[in-house]
């Protein structure tokens, strides 16, 4: 029996909508300040080289140049371990990625930065900086970097971490299996591909405070990084987040802000730096390329008995690939008694990797879900039915430790099985249907929210989660539901770091869950205070006042929220509700895809004929934006599956660092993306919300690989499955089976 809601589950126009369709919304590059200078970052042309000499003198005397900085301009504070929102990292690695010191570790690594009267002058001057490099051998893939004689990026070994999860017995358990499938997989490095390049403006003010305006997924992370690398107390840094033009994990790391601040201190004026698209590709974001081996054994009824995974993920230039989450997700969808997982975090001469929507999980699911499809075929069991026989449920213990609370894996699979798409036969030559599922655990993290009641019956909501996809509205709706007012009567603002309590990143599918929970709790704080005001009006006890659907009542007296709001001045002054949360129980989300493809055997081109995305949202606050997350994640997964890759030269140059050559899906490449929202309420949230931002990107590559197999008989185990790869796989399959 689900609760009935007035606001939750409706589809109001988003609060920032008018600004965003009229061009008024201010994004990172739109910031204008009096006296603004423009920065340009000089980047390494080598993937791995020692910096022998760096001479900025010619650039300094170039007309229009106001400041130049290099790594030597950072305060040389002693090495320590810092936690900047994504785990523990040595400070030298954080600083080193901002401006290289001694060595460059990837092509595009920042070496120096210039501030000048405009961006053209800054760029011209930057190219007058003389850098003498001693090129070093580079290493570009995890398996190569793990070899004994591989070039080393740091004093520490390239393998920076080995993660091992074991449940039950290891190898021995496979002896009871009727069928065992063991396969190897490779996935290419891909980029988050947000359309807005990174942009930051900083002013080192004359009072010593550093003011930053930037496009980021987490303004408090920016504050902490700036404070850390510039050796300032956090209170001396104020970060004002602008609107953000996409992130997907790639705008959690900080690249520009401390550099702009150093330039500003030297120049005595504000400095804005906007990345070029080439810099975005070469120096930010990508998600790890990986090598994965998965082995699963099942009994004759299809029950999985044992599973093993070996996962080597590219960290890029600094440790911290998303192999940890990858190991946690690789078998997360299934109840398997015996599991052994080994994960390796491996430094290579590519940009330092960042989170990308369910980071690590898509690579892992590509392997697992392809193996599961093979087992289904070998046993002659329907692939959804096989998954249902093994689906994780409440009480299932993952190999990495946690036991699931209520989850929706079974419900997602049932919804797939019963979907009209799955029931409709697929006819025609070279066509095939594939399915796959995926899991992402989601996170909690701190959030803060305040609500101030206005005399006209509206409420100002202040929160600190930058809004990438309509979260102002999904947060405001939760406050409106509690207050018994319309979504439009809550006016949400995303505040700067001086004006709201510490709030974690917009990431981990946490914003509607955690900041929404803070709004829910703050609204209850308002209700409590409004009850006090009604009690005062009626000269009765607070415990005599009831609240339902925005009406406060006591005996035969009643007053609406708006009427009571008009009288807060006379009953004691402003009403401000507040709440902070740091929730556990984010409640993971499962997603599944049904995809029909047609493969052109002459060219290897794969066309998506029909695509259905199913996902457990717990409770969909704003269904349109839940669907939007599902569609967007699915299409990123389609791009990852079919086209996208960092195409690297042997010397470590990305050969396709433009949006022409790094081919992301266009409108013409796709059909409509059908969605099916499943709602298995999350016991860890007052409305049952599960974050929906990420799990949707996990299944598409595997679902498409399975569909290609059913269309052609060729199994693809390497991403991307672009036309040459598919063509080649079909040819090899034909040769080995004698088909023609």
């Amino acid at each position: 029996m689900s609760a009935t809601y007035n606001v939750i589950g409706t589809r109001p126009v988003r609060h920032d909508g008018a600004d965003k369709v009229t061009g008024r919304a201010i994004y990172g590059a739109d910031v204008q300040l009096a006296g603004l200078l423009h920065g340009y970052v000089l980047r390494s042309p080598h993937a791995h080289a020692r910096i022998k000499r760096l001479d900025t003198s010619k650039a300094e005397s170039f007309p229009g140049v106001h400041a130049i900085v290099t790594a030597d301009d950072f305060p040389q504070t002693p090495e320590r371990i810092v936690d900047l929102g994504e785990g523990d990292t040595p400070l030298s690695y954080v600083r080193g990625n901002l401006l290289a010191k001694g060595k460059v570790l990837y092509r595009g690594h920042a070496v120096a930065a210039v501030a000048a009267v405009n961006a053209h002058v800054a760029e011209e001057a930057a190219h007058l900086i003389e850098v003498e490099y001693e090129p070093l051998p580079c290493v570009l893939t995890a398996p190569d970097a793990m070899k004994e004689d591989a070039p080393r990026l740091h004093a520490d070994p390239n393998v920076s971490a080995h993660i091992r999860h074991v449940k039950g017995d290891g190898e021995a358990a496979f002896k009871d299996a009727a069928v065992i499938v063991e396969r190897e997989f490779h996935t290419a490095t891909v980029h988050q591909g947000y359309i807005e390049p990174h942009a930051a403006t900083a002013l080192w003010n004359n009072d010593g405070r550093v003011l930053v305006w930037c496009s980021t997924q987490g303004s408090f992370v920016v504050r902490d990084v700036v404070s850390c690398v510039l050796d300032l107390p956090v209170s001396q840094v104020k970060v004002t987040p602008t609107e953000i033009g996409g992130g997907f994990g790639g705008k959690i790391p900080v690249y520009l802000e401390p550099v702009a601040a150093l330039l500003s201190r030297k120049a005595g004026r504000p400095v804005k730096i906007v990345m070029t698209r080439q810099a975005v590709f070469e120096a930010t974001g990508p998600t790890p390329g990986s090598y994965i081996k998965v082995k699963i054994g099942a009994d004759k009824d299809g029950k999985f008995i044992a599973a093993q995974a070996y996962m080597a993920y590219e960290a890029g230039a600094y440790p911290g690939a998303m192999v940890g989450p990858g190991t946690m997700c690789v078998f997360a969808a299934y109840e398997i008694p015996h599991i052994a997982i080994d994960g390796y975090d491996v430094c290579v001469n590519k940009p330092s990797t960042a989170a990308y929507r369910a980071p690590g999980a898509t690579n892992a699911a590509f392997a697992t879900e392809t193996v599961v499809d093979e087992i289904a075929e070998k046993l002659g069991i329907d692939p959804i039915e096989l998954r249902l026989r093994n689906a994780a449920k409440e009480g299932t213990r993952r190999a990495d430790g946690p036991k699931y609370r209520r989850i929706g894996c079974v419900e997602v699979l049932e919804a797939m099985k019963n979907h009209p798409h799955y029931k409709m036969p697929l006819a025609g030559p070279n066509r095939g249907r594939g399915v796959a599922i995926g899991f992402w655990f989601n996170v909690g993290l701190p959030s803060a929210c305040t609500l101030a009641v206005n005399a006209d019956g509206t409420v100002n909501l202040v929160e600190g989660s930058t809004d990438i996809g309509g979260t102002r509205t999904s947060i405001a709706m939760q406050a409106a539901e509690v207050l018994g007012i319309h979504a439009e009567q809550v006016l949400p603002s995303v505040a700067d770091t001086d004006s709201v309590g510490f709030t974690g990143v917009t990431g981990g599918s946490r914003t509607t869950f955690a900041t929404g929970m803070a709004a829910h709790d703050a609204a209850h704080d308002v209700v409590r205070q409004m009850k006090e005001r009604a009690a005062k009006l009626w000269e009765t006890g607070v415990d005599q006042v009831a609240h339902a659907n925005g009406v406060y009542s006591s005996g035969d007296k009643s007053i609406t929220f708006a009427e009571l709001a008009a009288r807060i001045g006379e009953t004691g002054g402003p009403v401000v509700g507040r709440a902070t949360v740091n929730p556990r129980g984010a409640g993971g989300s499962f997603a599944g895809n049904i995809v029909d493809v047609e493969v052109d055997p002459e060219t290897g081109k794969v066309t998506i004929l029909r695509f259905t995305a199913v996902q457990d949202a717990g409770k969909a606050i704003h269904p349109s934006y839940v669907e939007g997350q599902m569609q967007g994640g699915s299409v990123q997964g389609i791009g990852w599956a079919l086209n996208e890759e960092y195409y690297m030269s042997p010397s470590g140059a990305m050969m396709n660092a433009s949006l022409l050559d790094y081919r992301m899906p266009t409108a013409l490449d796709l059909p409509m993306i059908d969605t099916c929202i499943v709602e298995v309420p999350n016991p860890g949230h007052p409305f049952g919300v599960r974050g929906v931002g990420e799990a949707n990107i996990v299944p598409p590559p595997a679902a498409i690989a399975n569909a290609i197999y059913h269309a052609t008989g060729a199994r693809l185990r390497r991403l991307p499955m672009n036309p040459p790869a598919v063509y080649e796989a079909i040819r090899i399959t034909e040769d080995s089976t004698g088909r023609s």
Partner: protein
Amino acid sequence: MHAKVHVQCTINNEPAEFLCEPRQSLLECLRDVLGLTGTKEGCNDGNCGACTVMFDGRIVTSCLVLGVEAQGRSITTVEGIARGSQLHPLQQAFLENAALQCGICTPGFLVAAKALLDQEPNPSEERIRLFLANNLCRCTGYDKIIRAVQQCAREANA
């Protein structure tokens, strides 16, 4: 550095003039000289469509047009789409259909979609997809954008 050039043109149906360096793109002139920051830069090489504007009745990526080429021309940016305080039906349709998430590509999509509907009031889904294939969106998977354009066309033809 070359002397700046004086350019006179029409922007969003009003006369405009500005000084620009010969090397500055129309996109830079709109954003940095004229303060019309609604037009966005996503790639600066004509591949993402975020900077799409109308240029004498054609859609162009303004990063590939020089500011000096605007002399005597008529330009419409996203700031010129609304009818006074009334949103254009396309803008309204984008909002009602949740056809934007981060919103950075939205100005380019609106200008391009308006150009399509101005020429072809009743385009097929395939035609909309082809016409908008110059504009990249990384958030929506395009589904709701296509539906917004379809709804706008439907209502205009009703």
